[in-house]
C-alpha cells in the first residue's frame, strides 16, 4: 500500500512520505494546518487512491471518547424488559457500535478519519491513547475484548484550537500542511479547473496573495476560498483585465465575499480603499 497522490489532490512530497510512513508503521497520522488547506479531503483522497473504505468520526465539543467505542442503550432494554421482549435476555442487542468498533471489524484495512479532534474536551485524546495504540478495547457490559482484525489507517485532523497532550503526540506521525506556494497553488487550480486561462489565474493569484499579505486580517483566505472565488469569477465571466485594474478606488476585488468571510475584514478593506482614494485626491 503506497499513496502517491491522486488526480484530484495535489500531494507534496513531504505529505506523501508522512502518509506512507503512517501506513507502513500502522501509526496514526496527525494533520494540522490552516483551515481550508485540505486536511479532511486528504483522508478521502487517500481512501480513494488505495481503494479502501473510509470511516469518518466527526468530533464535536460534546463528543466523548466512549462514543467512538460503543454505547449501551439502557432505556430500551428497560422498556423491553417490561414488555417481555425476548431480546432483553441478550445484552448485546442494546450495545450500539461506535466508529472505532466499526473500523476494527472490517476484514480489509479501512481508513478511520477522526476529524477535528481539537473540538472535543481537553481529555479526549488521552482517553483514546490505549485504544489507538493497541487497537483494542474492553466492553464492560459483555466482558469481551474487541480487537482490530486489521489495524486501520488512522488519520486525525486538528485545527489547533486546543493543544494536544504530549503522550498522544508521541504516538503519531505529524504533518503540518503548509500554505501552498504559488507553484503548488497553480497545480491545485489546474486540478480543479483544467485548462483555465493562464492570465486569469495569474491575476487572481496575484490578488489572492496580496490579500493574504494584508496585515491584521482576522481570517486569511485559504485554498478552498480561492477555489470558490475562481468558480465565481468563471461563472460571472470576469475578465483578467478587470482583475488587473489597479484603480485604487477599486481596491476591494470583485466578488470579495468568497475570499473575506468576516465583516471586520471587509471593513478593513473598505477603510484601506477609502484611504487610498483620499490620498489620490
Amino acid at each position, binding site marked *: 500500500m503506497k499513496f502517491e497522490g491522486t488526480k484530484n489532490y495535489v500531494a507534496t*512530497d*513531504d505529505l*506523501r*512520505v*508522512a502518509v*506512507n*510512513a*503512517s501506513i*507502513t*508503521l500502522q*501509526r496514526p*497520522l*496527525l494533520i*494540522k494546518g490552516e483551515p481550508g488547506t485540505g486536511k479532511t479531503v486528504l483522508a478521502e483522497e487517500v481512501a480513494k487512491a488505495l481503494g479502501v473504505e473510509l470511516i469518518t468520526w466527526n468530533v464535536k465539543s460534546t463528543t466523548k471518547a466512549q462514543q467512538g467505542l460503543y454505547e449501551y442503550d*439502557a*432505556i430500551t432494554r*428497560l*422498556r423491553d424488559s*417490561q414488555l417481555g421482549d425476548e431480546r432483553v435476555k441478550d445484552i448485546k442487542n442494546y450495545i450500539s457500535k461506535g466508529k472505532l468498533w466499526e473500523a476494527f471489524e472490517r476484514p480489509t484495512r479501512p481508513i478511520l478519519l477522526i476529524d477535528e479532534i481539537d473540538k472535543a474536551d*481537553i481529555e479526549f485524546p488521552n482517553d483514546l491513547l490505549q485504544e489507538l495504540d493497541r487497537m483494542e478495547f474492553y466492553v464492560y457490559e459483555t466482558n469481551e475484548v474487541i480487537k482490530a482484525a486489521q489495524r486501520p489507517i488512522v488519520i486525525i485532523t486538528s485545527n489547533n484550537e*486546543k*493543544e*494536544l*497532550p*504530549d503522550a498522544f*503526540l*508521541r*504516538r*503519531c*506521525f*505529524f*504533518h*503540518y500542511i503548509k500554505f501552498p506556494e504559488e507553484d503548488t497553488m497553480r497545480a491545485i487550480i489546474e486540478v480543479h479547473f483544467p485548462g483555465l486561462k493562464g492570465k486569469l489565474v495569474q491575476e487572481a493569484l496575484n490578488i489572492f496573495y496580496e490579500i493574504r499579505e494584508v496585515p491584521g486580517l482576522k481570517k486569511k483566505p485559504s485554498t478552498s476560498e480561492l477555489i470558490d472565488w475562481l468558480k465565481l469569477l468563471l461563472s460571472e465571466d470576469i475578465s483578467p483585465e478587470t482583475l488587473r485594474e489597479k484603480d485604487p478606488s477599486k481596491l476591494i476585488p470583485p466578488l470579495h465575499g468568497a475570499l473575506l468571510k468576516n465583516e471586520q475584514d471587509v471593513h478593513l478593506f473598505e477603510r484601506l480603499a477609502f484611504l487610498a482614494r483620499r490620498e489620490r485626491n
Partner: protein
Amino acid sequence: MFVHFFHELKKANVPVTLREYLMLLEAMDKNVIENRVEDFYFLSRASLVKDERNLDKFDQVFGHVFKGLDLTLEDHSQQLPEEWLKALTEKFLTEEEKAEIEKLGGWEKIMETLKQRLEEQKKRHEGGNKMIGTAGTSPFGANGYNPEGVRIGQKEGRHGKAVKVWDKREYKNLDDQVELGTRNIKVALRRLRKFAREGAQTELDLPDTIKSTANSGYLDIKMIAERRNKVKLLVLFDIGGSMDSHIKLCEELFSAARTEFKNMEYFYFHNCLYEGVWKDNRRRHNEKMNTWDVLHKFPADYKVVFVGDATMSPYEITYAGGSVEHWNEEPGAIWLERVTQIYENAVWLNPVAERHWEYTPSLQIIKQIMGERMFPLTLEGLDKAMRELSR
C-alpha cells in the same frame, strides 16, 4: 544510527523522545522511503516534530547535522556565567600586538576555534592570549583587543570592532517554573471546578430511572440537568505600561480561562484599581465603567482574580491623586480593600518572578492588602491560587 542527530535536536530544545526516535528507525528499517536525502528529511520531520512551532528549529538542526551548515539558532546561543566577564581590567595594547592579532586568520577560523575553546574551558579566565575571558588578546572575550574578535556577554565592544556576539547559555533552565502554553494552564485551572446541576433537564438519570421503574412497575424515565461548572469568575487585568512585557502570558491565561469557565467576566485597569474599569482598551477613556457598578453587579459568590505585576510607585496605591493617568479621588488601596471585603475569594496573580518580589515596595503593599494571597503566574503558582480560590 542517528544518535548524534537526536542529541542535537534535544540540545536545540525540540521535544523529542526515545519513542519517536525508535519510530524513525523502524520506518527506515521498513523502507518507507527510498534513499533520498529529501525523503529522509520529510520522514524524520514527520516522526520527530509534533508541533509546527518547532519546525524551524528542526530545519536548522537538520541542516547543521547533515549538511554541515553553520548553526545560528537564536535561542541556542550559549551564555557564560556573568562573573567571568565582568570587565575588571582594561588592557591597552601596543601597535605591534595589534598587528600580530590581525594575522590570526579569517572569521570562519575564529568561530571554529571559539567553539573548541568554549568546550575546553570551564573556569574563569583573565588576561593571557588563548582562553576566553576578559581583557586578554585572545580573539574571544570581552573588553580585549582583537580586530576580528568575537564579543562574549558584552553588549557593546569598547573598541567597537567585534563582529558577532556569541552568548553562551548553560544554566538557564527553569523547567516547571516556565510557562508552557495554554494546555497546561487549562489543566491547572481545572482545579477550580464546582459541578452543579442547574438549568434545563436534558440528561437521562439512569440510576433514578431504574429505581423509579422498579418502584412503579412501568417505565418511568427521570431526567436530570447537565453537570456544569458553576464557578463564577471575575478577572481584572492590569494592562499597559510595565505589563506589556507579560502580554503573551496574560493572553494565554485569558484564552485558557475563557474556555474553561463559562461564567467569566473580565475588566481592565491600569497599574492599580481605581474608580473606573473598562472592557475595551481602544476606548478606555470613553467607555469606562464605574467600579462601584461592577462591585454591585456581581454578587459575592464570584471569585476575583487580579492579574498584574503590582509594580508602580507606592503613591499610586496609597494616596488620593496618585494615579499616573487621571485624578483619583480615593486612593487605590481603598478600592482594593473594598474588593477583598465584598468577595471572600480573591487572589492576585503576578507575572513577575517571585524572587524579585521583595525588591518592589508597591508589590509588598498590594500583597498585604490582598492578605498575602498573591501568587506568581507560573503553573505552580496558578495551582496554588486555584486551591486558594476553591476553599
